[in-house]
């Protein structure tokens, strides 16, 4: 009988690993996707990965600071999404294009 403790005993490590996995998935999205709006979504994924870490630590260490941080991160993430989408929309309205590589042309 193999040791299946890691399956039955869920602890802080599990949450941390889960959050790392979500963070890296989001990271991959940011690095690899073409669509600017999907990239924004991937950023939200990354932020959520981090949020899980915060809440996990907060609850395992018995400190509320982690949750406050998450509260603030949530707010800022929403603000970021609003502005990011507003930018994307402004560009899309003009150029009918959301490819992230197209955004390079906006420099200068």
């Amino acid at each position, binding site marked *: 009988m193999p040791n299946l403790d890691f399956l039955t005993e869920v602890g802080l490590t599990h949450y941390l690993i889960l959050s790392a996995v979500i963070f890296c998935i989001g990271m991959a999205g940011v690095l690899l996707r073409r669509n600017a709006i999907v990239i924004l979504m991937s950023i939200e994924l990354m932020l959520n990965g981090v949020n899980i870490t915060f809440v996990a630590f907060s609850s395992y260490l018995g400190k509320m600071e982690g949750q406050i941080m998450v509260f603030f991160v*949530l*707010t800022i993430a*929403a*603000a970021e*999404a*609003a502005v990011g*989408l*507003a930018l994307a*929309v402004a560009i899309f*309205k003009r150029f009918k294009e959301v490819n992230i590589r197209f955004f390079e042309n906006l420099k200068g």
Partner: protein
Amino acid sequence: MPLGGILFIAVFVILFGCLMLFLASKAGKRVYDPVKFEAYECGIPAQEKKDTKISVKFYLTAILFIIFDIEIIFMYPWATTFRDFIQSGQGLFVLTSMFIFLLVFIYGLFWEVKSKALEWD
């Protein structure tokens, strides 16, 4: 922890919905007619599919909603703890700090109204 219950009922409802859909698809008779499957267009033949120009207002409303929603959510912890703060003598301080926050909120709302971002015509 009610999470189990929530998951249970959610799954149950989804299964129930799917079952209903499945039953309905089996029960109804089917007569094939290409016109029937066209998008409903008040009787005239459907033109370009759904490339409709839609006002950016909807999207603007959604953005403003997010922002004001968060501001409102910030009031929730305040609202639950306000009585405690009053009891510990910090009521006025907390109320003032909330008022500063609200002032910013009201200014934002006022600006949106003034800049006609909320005008639908």
